């Protein structure tokens, strides 16, 4: 099972995402922003970081990288794609996911161990969780406030596309405490928190994040 992890200039958590794929039992593959080649991967992770410094808007420049046209095409064809943090921002900028991520309401970067609830356990990336399951994984972002207009938000809720929500105090001002959303088909998921930092007892607050990566391995085997 080959899971590609894209490195943009300024990607930071690509190493961690590859490690998480390996810990989950998959085969991590490096994908380079300037190549359109997806190297026959079965799934793609857009990792966290500050692509192009996030100077304009998080994800705004990375969206135009050559690799993204292939990712968009693959996503439309049903390939599982997970965008974590900056990857989520890239997915929104690419219009693979609705809404946008803006500056945290308290205007500070925040890094903390965050409690989440999984609301949809039927996506390619959350099949290994139970709906309603609580997890604790690291959250770290400066522009993590999820926003969309009310019609979009209602539609997301109605269609079960809110994948995860923050529990307790809203850490960044996200509308309706949304931590992650999916596309209609459930193969593309964007997530602000960082499951790839919670896959090892030694370095993470928990190992609660591992199931994102084992889920997709199972989903692609089943598919």
């Amino acid at each position, binding site marked *: 099972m080959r899971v590609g992890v894209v490195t943009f200039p300024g990607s930071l958590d690509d190493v961690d995402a590859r490690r998480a794929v390996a810990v989950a039992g998959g085969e991590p593959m490096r994908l380079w922003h300037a190549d359109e080649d997806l190297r026959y991967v079965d799934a793609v992770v857009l990792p966290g970081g500050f692509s192009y410094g996030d100077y*304009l*808007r998080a994800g*705004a420049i990375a969206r135009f990288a050559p690799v993204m046209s292939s990712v968009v095409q693959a996503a439309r064809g049903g390939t599982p794609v997970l965008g974590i943090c900056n990857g989520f921002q890239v997915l929104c900028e690419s219009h693979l996911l609705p809404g946008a991520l*803006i500056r*945290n*309401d308290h*205007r500070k970067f925040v890094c903390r161990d965050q409690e989440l609830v999984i609301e949809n356990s039927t996506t390619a990336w959350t099949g290994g969780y139970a709906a309603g399951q609580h997890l604790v994984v690291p959250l770290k972002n400066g522009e993590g*406030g999820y*926003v969309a207009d009310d019609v979009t938000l209602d539609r997301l809720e109605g269609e079960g596309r809110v994948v995860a929500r923050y529990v307790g105090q809203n850490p960044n*001002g996200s509308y309706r405490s949304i931590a992650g959303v999916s596309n209609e088909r459930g193969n593309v998921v964007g997530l602000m928190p960082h499951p790839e930092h919670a896959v090892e007892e030694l370095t993470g607050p928990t190992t609660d994040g591992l199931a994102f990566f084992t889920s997709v391995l199972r989903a692609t085997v089943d598919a």
Partner: protein
Amino acid sequence: MARVVVDVMLKPEILDPQGKAVAQALPRLGFDGITAVRQGKRFELEVDGEVTEERLAQIRGAAETLLSNPVIEDFTVRVEEA
């Protein structure tokens, strides 16, 4: 050489944490009478040669796809006198 200015502001219905923070800080610093503040971005583009209609249309394209995110932002484009 000419300059084109692109202003990008969050749509009115989107929360603007930075503008809000400024609005709250103003009275604390003794500046009264300001009822609301929005914070956006200003881009100054230096253009080589004349700003033709075609060039302006191009810049509008850039403003729409790169400089702003139409999901949350509006923009205006204007040529500035040198």
